[in-house]
C-alpha cells in the first residue's frame, strides 16, 4: 500500500498555548485511521491544519506526494482531501441536493453542473437521503444534517476523508447505520478515512491504526489492540474515569 498522507513534525501555537506540537504520522491508501484523545487534546486543530483552515507554525504536510502545507482549503479539497465538521455546517437555504452538488462541483471531482447533479443523487442514496433531495437543508434533523455533511464530502470524490465526530449526538440505530456507511466508503469507494471519535468501541472496531493525542502531543500510535493496552494512554484517560473504563473494557 502506498502512502497517501504524511504529516511531519507539525505544530501550532495559539497566543503562547501549544495547541499541537511535533505531530507526525502517515496514512496509507484505503486505511481507516483513528484519532483519539481527551477533550482539548488538539484533534480538531490537527484537522484544521491538515485541510488548510489554519496554517501550521512548523512542520510539513504532504498529500499524494505534494506538499500541501498552508494551502487554502479549497485547493486541498481539489487535490482529493475532504472533511466534515464536528458542528455541522449545512447550507441552510439550499436544497439537500444542491448542498451535495456543491461538493461534487468543487471537490476533487470538479464536475460540471450537469454531471454533478446525478452524481450528487448517487451519493444521497448512499447515505439514505435521496428521499429528502428537494427539501431545504435547514429543515433536516441533526442526524440528517450529519449524513448530509458526509454526503457533501464524499461527493467531492476524495482519496482521503477527514471525519470529525460524525457519530456524536446520534442514537444507537443511527450510529449503526453510520458505521456501515463508513465501512462502505472504504470498501466500495476505496476512500481512506481519518476519523476523530469519542465512541471508543466504534473506533477500536473500525480503525486499522490509531493515533492518540494529549495536550497537543502524540501519546501513542499503533493498531487498536496495542493502543488499548498502552499504559500511557490509559493514564491520560484516567482523568476521565468513564473513558478509562471504556478503554479497559474493550481491551
Amino acid at each position, binding site marked *: 500500500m502506498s502512502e497517501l498522507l504524511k504529516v511531519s513534525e507539525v505544530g501550532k501555537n495559539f497566543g503562547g498555548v501549544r495547541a499541537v506540537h511535533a505531530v507526525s504520522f502517515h496514512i496509507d491508501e484505503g486505511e481507516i485511521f483513528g484519532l483519539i484523545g481527551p477533550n482539548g487534546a488538539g484533534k480538531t486543530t490537527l484537522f484544521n491544519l491538515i*485541510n488548510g*483552515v489554519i496554517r501550521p507554525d512548523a512542520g510539513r504536510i504532504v498529500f499524494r506526494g505534494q506538499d500541501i502545507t498552508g494551502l*487554502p*482549503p*479549497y*485547493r486541498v*479539497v*481539489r487535490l482529493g482531501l475532504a*472533511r466534515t*465538521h464536528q458542528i455541522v*455546517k*449545512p*447550507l*441552510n*437555504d*439550499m436544497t439537500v441536493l*444542491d448542498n451535495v*452538488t*456543491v*461538493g461534487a*462541483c*468543487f*471537490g*476533487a471531482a*470538479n464536475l*460540471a*453542473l450537469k454531471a*454533478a447533479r446525478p452524481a450528487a443523487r448517487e451519493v444521497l442514496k448512499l447515505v439514505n437521503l435521496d428521499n429528502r433531495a428537494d427539501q431545504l437543508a435547514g429543515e433536516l434533523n441533526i442526524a440528517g444534517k450529519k449524513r448530509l455533511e458526509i454526503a*457533501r*464530502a464524499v461527493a*467531492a470524490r476524495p482519496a482521503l476523508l477527514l471525519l470529525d465526530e460524525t457519530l456524536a449526538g446520534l442514537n444507537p440505530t443511527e450510529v449503526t447505520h453510520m458505521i456501515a456507511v463508513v465501512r462502505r466508503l472504504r470498501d466500495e469507494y476505496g476512500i481512506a478515512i481519518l476519523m476523530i471519535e469519542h465512541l471508543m468501541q466504534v473506533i477500536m472496531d473500525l480503525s486499522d491504526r490509531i493515533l492518540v493525542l494529549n495536550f497537543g502531543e502524540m501519546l501513542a500510535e499503533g493498531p487498536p489492540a496495542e493502543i488499548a493496552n498502552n499504559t500511557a494512554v490509559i493514564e491520560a484517560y484516567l482523568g476521565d474515569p468513564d473513558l478509562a473504563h471504556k478503554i479497559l473494557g474493550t481491551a
Partner: protein
Amino acid sequence: MYKRPFFWIVLAVIAAFVLVPGISGDVGLRESLLLGAVYIVLASNLNLMIGYTGYVNFGNIAFFGLGGYIGMYLVTALHWSVWLASAVAGASVSLFALLLGLGILRLRGAYFALATIGINEAVKAAVSNFSPFGGASGMYLSFSSFAPLGGPRHALWIIYFAIVVLMGASLLLSLAIKNSKFGLGLFAIREDEDAAIVLGVRAPWYKSAIFALSAFLPAMVGTLYFFKNGVILPEQAFDLTLSIEAIVMLMLGGQGTIFGAAFGAFVYEQFRGFLLVSPLFSQFQLVVAGILLLAIVLFLPGGFMGWVYRKLPRLRKVLE
C-alpha cells in the same frame, strides 16, 4: 437557457418596454419606463451581491456614478461615441471593482457594508476635487453631442432603447449565473462561507469576480443615463440615498429572486412616481415610503416574490 420560461418572459418584457412607448410615441411613458429600467439594472445587479452572495453592498451606486463619470469624460473631453464610451466605462469600472474586491471582500457582514459606504463617500469626495472630471461643477454636455444620434429628440429614444437592452442583459445575466456552477458556488458562500471554502469553493476569487461582474452593467447604464441627462455632478452620481433605495427595491421584490429584483425595482419606481405627483402625499412621500419599507422588513422579509414562492413553490421552479 432558452428552454427556461424566464428567458421568454424577459424577451416579452423587453418587447413591451420597446413597443408600448415606441408605437404610441408617448414620451412621458418612456421617461417613466426609463427610470424603471435603470432601477431594474441597479437592483438586479445588486442582487448578485446581496441575494446571491450574501454581501450587502451599500455603496453600489458608486459603480453607476463612476461609470457615468468615465463615460461622460470620454464623450465630452475626448469626443468618443457614447456607445464606445459606455463599454469602456463598464470595463474599467469592473476592473476597479475587481481590484477593490480583493481588498474589501475580506470583510464580512456589517463590516463589509460599512466599507462600501466609505468607498462611495471617498470616491465622491475625490471626484469632487478631481479637475479633469470638472471637480464639483461636474461635466455638462453640449447640445451638439446629441447630433450623431440625430439630435436630442431622437437621441433620447435611442438611449432609452439601449438602456432597455441593458436591462434585459442584466436579467439574463442574473438567470445565467443562477443556473451555473459559478452561481452554485456563490450561493454556498452566501449560506456559509467557511463551509463553502472547505467544500472547494474558491471564495476570494468568486467574491471578487461577482463584485466586478455586478459593476459592469450599472457602469454602462451610468454613462447612458448621464449622457441623457446632459449633466453629471458628484452629488447626483454618488447619491447614497439612491444606493439604499436600490436595496429597498430588492427587498420589496425579494432578494435572491430574479423576478423579485425586477418587480421590486419597477413597482418602487412607479410608487415613488405616484407619491411625487399625488397632491395628497407629495408632502409626506418620504414618510409613506418609510412606513411601507418598515412594513415589508417586519412582516414580509422575503419580499413579494419570496412570499409568492412560499405559497406556490412550483412557480419558483418554473420561473427561475
